[in-house]
């Protein structure tokens, strides 16, 4: 097989037609690095929109009565908040942004396996997102939650719900294209001589994630198409008044949407595994067990979906099966956390923003994981299901987990993306208010859920007013925390210290080229990095080995 992407880029004709400079970020660029940054910036814009919606929810909840917005608008806002944060921010950024930027470097390729499909996958996102948000202004957005359970999704105004379905179908399609591309790149574009078990951990995380994407996203697509038939053509797949079964929808929906949690979290696990060794100057602890635990999470992640349905129409045997399966996910996940702590142990840890956000992730995610194991227990879940306890739990997983890792990754790779360093003091300040604000916002919600506050309500028992105001104060801090971050990002492009090729002295291949990297990724042949984590006082020669390997030319085989 020929090395298709490199030839495509090296042939000047297709690339030379593309705009140069900042304009290329608004073009149908085929460069995986441009596409990665397109995903990142686009995702961040949607994060700000989703964050504004979250602020609106928290403002509504500072008082126990529904007084800030109309009740149906409140339901639209919570539906949009969930959908935007999942499908337009976390999934595209932890997969699309960092995956596209890093995976070709890590496998020693000059681009993704299918560059055009890659650009198509990205360019499906902005129209889908715009359509979703504009539905609020044109017809009123969907108001049945991001889960869109029928019959509610069939009986609420149809236009908004249909637009929601089309957007999610487009975003799911984009995700599937991306998943296929990552699988092909990791399996087929590895530089000759590079073995699978020598790949950086993020490749393994993306490999596992892409398997989940390719297996489960089509199920969501099929389900939503059937739901749209129920809405526009009055079929009866899920409509009980026409003989449909509402519980089947929940099974099909969660068959995708539980793996979706791992689609948001496994890449984050991979990114942390890249960041910690560099800043601790220590090898990643337990590489092999890390790989196996990712694969175990992938397999188990496919057979736990019904734990979202414990209080639904679920017979006792099913409740118990899914309790056991879900509980066991804690084992491979636990291994990963112990391994990260062991990676910190005995290191020379630079206490910079990237490390602080990664450690914040470990602390938040451990708490989210513990409440997750508790929620997996049927008797426990029967009390707190669909309450603020669950809201707190999954925000600890997706915000305290994935979003903290996204920030950590931006602090870590910004020098590579732009060639400039970020301001560390601003970064540490950003971490501090994010961490305090996040925990102030979500920790009290555990208590709210246990004591009787259901989720997705605009009005609640007045006894919960004070704790809700505390939570809203935390949300205010989180909103404020984006200001130092944005300021840091923008001013560092112009005024940041010049980073140089390898400011952190990392060993993974993206650091063995200029910052920002050339279109071909390396000016010379791709380096063969067989020990991506070869740090450590005893193995000092490892660095010299990899740098000498750099000059060795790759044996391109036909």
């Amino acid at each position: 097989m020929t090395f298709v992407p490199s030839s495509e880029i090296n042939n000047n004709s297709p690339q030379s037609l593309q705009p140069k400079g900042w304009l290329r970020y608004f073009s149908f660029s085929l460069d995986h690095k441009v596409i990665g940054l397109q995903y990142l910036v686009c995702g961040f814009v949607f994060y700000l929109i989703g964050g504004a919606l979250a602020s609106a929810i928290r403002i509504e909840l500072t008082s126990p009565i529904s007084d800030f917005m109309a009740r149906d608008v409140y339901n639209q806002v919570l539906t949009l908040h969930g959908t935007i944060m999942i499908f337009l921010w976390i999934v595209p950024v932890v997969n699309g942004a960092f995956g596209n930027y890093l995976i070709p470097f890590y496998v020693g390729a000059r681009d993704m396996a299918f560059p055009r499909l890659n650009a198509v996958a990205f360019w499906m996102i902005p129209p889908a997102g715009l359509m979703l948000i504009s539905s609020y202004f044109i017809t009123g957005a969907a108001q049945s939650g991001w889960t869109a359970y029928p019959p509610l999704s069939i009986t609420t105004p149809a236009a908004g719900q249909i637009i929601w379905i089309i957007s999610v179908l487009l975003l799911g399609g984009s995700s599937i294209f991306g998943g296929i591309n990552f699988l092909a790149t990791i399996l087929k574009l590895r530089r000759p001589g590079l073995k699978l078990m020598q790949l950086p951990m993020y490749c393994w995380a993306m490999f596992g994630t892409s398997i989940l994407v390719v297996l489960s996203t089509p199920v969501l697509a099929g389900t939503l198409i059937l739901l749209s038939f129920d809405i526009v053509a009055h079929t009866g797949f899920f409509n009980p008044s026409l003989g449909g079964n509402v519980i089947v929808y929940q099974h099909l929906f969660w068959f995708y949407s539980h793996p979706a949690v791992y689609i948001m979290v496994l890449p984050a696990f991979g990114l942390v595994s890249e960041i910690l060794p560099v800043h601790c100057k220590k090898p990643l602890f337990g590489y092999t067990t890390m790989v196996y635990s990712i694969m175990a999470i992938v397999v188990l992640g496919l057979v736990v979906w019904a734990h979202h349905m414990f209080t639904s129409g679920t017979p006792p045997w099913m409740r118990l099966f899914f309790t056991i399966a879900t509980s066991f996910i804690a084992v491979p996940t636990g291994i990963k956390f112990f391994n990260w702590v062991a990676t910190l142990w005995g290191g020379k840890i630079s206490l910079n923003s990237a490390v602080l956000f990664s450690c914040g992730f470990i602390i938040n995610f451990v708490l989210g994981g513990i409440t997750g194991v508790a929620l997996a227990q049927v008797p426990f879940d029967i009390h707190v299901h669909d309450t603020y306890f669950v809201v707190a739990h999954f925000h600890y997983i997706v915000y305290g987990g994935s979003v903290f890792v996204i920030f950590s990754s931006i602090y870590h790779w910004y020098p590579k993306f732009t060639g400039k360093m970020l301001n560390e003091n601003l970064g540490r300040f950003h971490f501090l208010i994010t961490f305090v604000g996040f925990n102030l916002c979500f920790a009290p919600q555990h208590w709210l859920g246990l004591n009787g506050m259901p989720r997705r309500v605009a009005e609640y028992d007045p006894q919960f007013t004070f704790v809700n105001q505390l939570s809203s104060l935390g949300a205010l801090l989180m909103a404020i925390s984006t200001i130092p971050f944005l300021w840091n990002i923008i001013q560092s492009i112009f005024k940041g210290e010049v980073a140089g090729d390898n400011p952190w002295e990392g060993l993974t291949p993206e650091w063995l080229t200029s910052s920002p990297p050339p279109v071909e990724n390396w000016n010379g042949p791709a380096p063969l990095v067989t020990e991506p984590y070869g740090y450590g006082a005893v193995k000092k020669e490892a660095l010299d080995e990899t740098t000498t390997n750099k000059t060795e030319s790759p044996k391109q085989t036909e």
Partner: protein
Amino acid sequence: MLAVACLIAGGLWIGLHVNLLPDSASVNAPIYDELFKVLFSIGAILFLGMLGLVIYSLIRFRRRDGETGEGIALEGNLPLEILWTAIPAVVVLFVGLYSYDIYERMGGMENMNQSSHDHSSMKTEQRIWGGIGASTSQLDSQRGLNPLPVEVTAMQFAFLFHYPQGDILTGELHVPIGRPVSMKMESNDVIHAFWVPEFRLKQDVIPGQPTILNFTPNKVGKYPIICAELCGPYHGGMRSTVVVEEPDAFDSWLSKNSKQTASET
């Protein structure tokens, strides 16, 4: 070792002494609280342990100013990795078996489709799709208590409770203390959920698929009934009250409200 002992003692103390739960007003609530205390203790030990390890590592192994050099070249440690695979596996297995035991004591493993709703107005045998259902005939033989059947209908945005005994239709659930209540629930429109935090029980109320929920209240008082499944704009306002009263008070409520029909025997 000392640190581990302190950690376990601290976690247990937190788990047993910090009360995060509301009042308990049904027979299965104390069983739930027992599970909660165990999970809370284990969780507190694990969380404080990990928190301590991360903070300790960050302080102890931080790079001091002007310090160069690298960490130790430690790539793994098989016995250690086996240990921290085995410990969570054992903990998880214990938690799983324990919560199975709790679930069984709450009546969760009873055969739902044997519940004796045959003396209710619905004569046709309908499949029960979910819920917590101690078969009422078993309860009869165990305690000699005749369970109180109630038919629950949920709609946007209210619960309706129908007592076949006396043919009472009410928006407020009245139940006598100490007597098992057997509810059969169905929705008229979208999915709702019946939740009483003080009973530690919740069950979705689904259109087209009846579910059941059995409980025995054991504390007199008024407790909120909350809809816990997004059901439309007024979801937050879909609340009712369950009134647990002494048997005498309940009987007088029942006789005051029942329709004096000849069919009642």
